[in-house]
């Protein structure tokens, strides 16, 4: 396994960091307090190619592999303070573009990919429901075939990008019985279709600049050509999405952790108590050392997933391990950052508390920590 960065990758990393600092960071605090999505920033991300990272040039993308995409996402997480915006970008990439790219028909790819890459369209995916979260395949949303078209009915919740989305991949049960065996199918649904209702934006603990809502589906008519992949193939699409998300989105979090550490080191050198910089106290320096350790442990775990995927191999176990480790490390380091900043860390002005609030979601989405441990345990034969 070799994760050595090529010159080209290193240059791209630097360009993205500079871009993010210059174009995405002003006004973050204001957007965070008003819960405003930065559409201009989103379009700027499209302009430098971030929204087309894994998409082939034929559809307007950059045609990058997984490791290169991860490097770009790590750079985005490092440079961009607006982690809600970065989350919206990641959602579009890994839960909308990548499944269309890997499972879509040529007509579906032509219809959606070029416009998703330019940011003209915004996308997401909808699996979670009020009664089915971790137990995703127990979903109640049903799709029934009537007179040659699919009719979708059900309710989805916690859907990232829903308030701004043009197209959503909706997962629904297409079998007689519920659950994986019954058959889950993915459908491409446009949000202006009759019967699609997007609820008001949900108020969250963190990632406040990333819009989220419930999605209600009432007799939504979906023609057969808008089925993504095969009937009953929804679980495979969902698993594939999760492998991408668990590597690339969490690379973005790795970048945020590196920025957080730099901020903490700087503060520990400047802030003086009892006549010397707090960084001179072992309690603080060891906390910083642990933050560094987590970053260094997380990086190879994550890039291993990317490397395996670039070799065409499956990485279910490795993605679960990396996701679990990075998310828990991110939360712990964010708590440590608040501790290092003391009372100032608790105040909005210093941004440290925002990082903590943004980090907490990571142990929940893409499968909670418990679910990742369940996956690892299954691989151990338990």
């Amino acid at each position: 396994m070799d994760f050595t960065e090529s010159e080209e990758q290193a240059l791209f990393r630097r360009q993205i960091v500079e871009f993010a600092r210059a174009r995405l960071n002003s006004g973050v605090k204001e957007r965070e307090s008003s819960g405003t999505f930065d559409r201009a920033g989103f379009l700027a991300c499209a302009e430098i190619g971030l929204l087309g990272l894994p998409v082939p040039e034929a559809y307007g993308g950059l045609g990058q592999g997984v490791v290169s995409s991860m490097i770009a996402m790590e750079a985005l997480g490092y440079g961009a303070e607006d982690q809600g915006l970065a989350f919206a970008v990641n959602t579009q990439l890994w839960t909308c573009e990548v499944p269309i790219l890997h499972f879509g028909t040529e007509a579906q790819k032509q219809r959606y990919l070029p416009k998703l890459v330019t940011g003209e369209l915004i996308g997401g995916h909808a699996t979670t429901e009020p009664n089915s979260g971790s137990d995703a395949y127990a979903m109640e949303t049903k799709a029934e075939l009537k007179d040659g078209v699919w009719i979708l009915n059900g309710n989805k919740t916690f859907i990232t990008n829903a308030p701004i989305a043009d197209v959503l991949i909706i997962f629904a049960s297409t079998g007689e019985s519920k659950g994986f065996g019954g058959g889950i199918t993915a459908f491409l649904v446009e949000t202006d279709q009759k019967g699609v209702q997007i609820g008001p934006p949900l108020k969250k603990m963190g990632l406040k600049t990333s819009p989220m809502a419930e999605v209600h589906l009432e007799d939504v008519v979906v023609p057969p050509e808008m089925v993504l992949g095969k009937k009953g193939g929804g679980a495979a699409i969902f698993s594939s999405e999760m492998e991408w998300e668990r590597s690339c989105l969490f690379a973005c979090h790795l970048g945020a952790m590196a920025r957080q550490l730099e901020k903490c080191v700087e503060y520990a050198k400047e802030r003086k108590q009892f006549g010397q910089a707090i960084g001179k106290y072992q309690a603080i320096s060891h906390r910083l050392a642990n933050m560094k350790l987590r970053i260094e442990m997380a990086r190879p775990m994550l890039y291993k997933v990317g490397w395996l995927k670039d070799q065409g191999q499956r990485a279910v176990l490795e993605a679960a391990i990396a996701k679990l480790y990075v998310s828990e490390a991110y939360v712990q380091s964010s708590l440590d950052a608040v501790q290092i900043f003391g009372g100032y860390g608790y105040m909005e002005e210093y941004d440290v508390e925002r990082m903590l609030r943004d980090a907490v979601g990571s142990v929940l989405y893409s499968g909670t920590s418990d679910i990742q441990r369940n996956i690892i345990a299954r691989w151990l034969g338990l």
Partner: protein
Amino acid sequence: MSDRKTELLEFLQKELAQDHPGVDLSTEPLVESGIIDSLGIMKLVQFLEQRYQLKIGDQDLVPDNFENLDAILRLLAEKGR
């Protein structure tokens, strides 16, 4: 019984069907009975790909292809192994 069938039965018994003692895995509906679930299918596919040096596309990961042992053997045959 073919070698492949024996190997598959062994894998299913050891890795996926521990909670289903006494079941005849060669005839059991594997998906319907919950022996192969959403995680189990990934584990099985990884085993098949590594053991038989083949690639099973994500498009083929539908419950129908795994509903029983015969369906899995058919899928392997289709993949040229």
